[in-house]
């Protein structure tokens, strides 16, 4: 009798567990369906179009366009440029990601001061900024191409090693590092899947999806913003726009994504 009772209760437990698993699966499926529906109309296109205009527009004290800006493939070459960034630029003597390279060009070509060029790095409610649009446009011109960050120049190699250290750097009141959430396979925060950014396959998929249009914020978000907001949640102080740490970390992430197909601007919840 006792054994029958135990068997029955075990069966009930199994049934409950599988009902739960079922519920969970359908929640995940719903999210996937939602994502697929979103992808059919991505408002990032508005930023891309605005960015293309801004790229060609005569702006700044010198009233020139950015069309002579060298993003790494030669002056004015936009197609595929994002897949090779960040990279070392001899003219500035620095390793630059897209955002910092745009600032360099806005200063050198258009005559903005560095302060002016960096003033509004991220859009917000009622505020559309040129940086987001330029990032969207240039990134879109690498869609479908493979990530190919050389990281062979000594300064690129140094930035990679530095970025790796920063990735594993635990600090702040919560002892968090990037690796806390992004250093192991098949983990989630709440229902959000977390890519393991030390693993090629995950890094390719994750890096290749930024910049992205964030539905919940109604904004186009750059990789610089992604890092800024990760550090906020890590309980770190505020990451400065195009700071050395942000670029080193981007080199680490971009190189880990080498060989992956770039597919951004994407759309996210």
């Amino acid at each position: 009798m006792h054994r029958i009772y135990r068997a029955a209760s075990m069966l009930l437990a199994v049934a409950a567990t599988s009902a739960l698993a079922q519920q969970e699966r359908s929640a995940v499926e719903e999210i996937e369906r939602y994502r697929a529906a979103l992808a059919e109309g991505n408002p990032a296109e508005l930023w891309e179009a605005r960015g293309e205009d801004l790229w060609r527009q005569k702006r700044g004290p010198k009233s020139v366009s950015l069309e002579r800006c060298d993003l790494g493939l030669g002056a004015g070459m936009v197609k595929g440029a994002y897949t090779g960034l960040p990279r070392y630029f001899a003219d500035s003597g620095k390793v630059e990601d897209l955002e910092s390279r745009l600032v360099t060009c806005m200063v050198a070509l258009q005559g903005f001061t560095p302060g002016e060029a960096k003033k509004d790095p991220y859009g917000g409610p009622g505020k559309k900024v040129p940086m987001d649009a330029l990032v969207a446009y240039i990134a879109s011109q690498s869609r479908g191409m493979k990530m190919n960050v050389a990281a062979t120049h000594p300064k690129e190699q140094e930035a990679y090693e530095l970025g790796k250290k920063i990735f594993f750097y635990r600090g702040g009141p919560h002892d968090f590092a990037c690796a806390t959430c992004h250093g192991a396979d098949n983990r989630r925060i709440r229902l959000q899947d977390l890519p393991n950014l030390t693993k090629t396959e995950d890094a390719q998929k994750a890096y290749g999806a930024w910049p992205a249009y964030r539905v919940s914020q109604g904004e186009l978000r750059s990789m610089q913003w992604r890092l800024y907001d990760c550090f906020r949640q890590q309980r770190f102080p505020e990451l400065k726009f195009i700071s050395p740490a942000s670029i080193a970390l981007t080199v680490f992430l971009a190189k880990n994504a080498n060989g992956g197909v770039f597919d951004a601007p994407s759309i996210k919840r």
Partner: protein
Amino acid sequence: MKKKIIALGWSGTGNLIGAVLVATTAACASSPMSEDQRAAQAIEVMKASFRARGQAKLDRLEQDETQRLCSLYSGDEALPKEVGQRIETSQRAMIKYPADGKFIGDWKAGERIAQSGVGKQFSDDPALPAGGNCYACHQLTQSELSYGTIGPGLYQFGKLRGYTPEIEQYAYGKIYNSQAFSACSNMPRFGHQGILTEQQIKDVVALLMDPQSPINR
């Protein structure tokens, strides 16, 4: 020839970009930096890359010994057993258990703490209590389906382990300082770092250990 890094700096002022080793001897280019040198460089770079905002001051970039060791033995390098034991011993010695000897608070308050992810971010109001955000990483009650998997599932925590004072004390200590029991755990040291108050930790212990808590029913 012994390599020597004379200075680290940034080309330019403010938050200009690109790390520059201002002066290195020739040997430096051919032999890689040591881990310690690289770590020191990373700290310098980070200090130049963040600004204080709200409650998140730059001192948050300063690591304590545990954070330093856990960062060093991360990624490619496994944590040596003796280092792990050293961390656990030192952290265990710093746990402050409640003076009244009681570990159990109100599980309903504990559930609210487990659900809340605010606290300690520069975007948070420091006057408001922080949450524990337990659901970000753990399954707890069965009714909450939106839970993470960075930490182990804790459904039926008390029921499976027994409602004993020893387990209550263990749960309190684990939440207070996870690294006292598992060196370099991903879990924040909620008491040690002043994220949760003594009462809040008791409330979360109640969520795990009260037989009436939905975790155990």
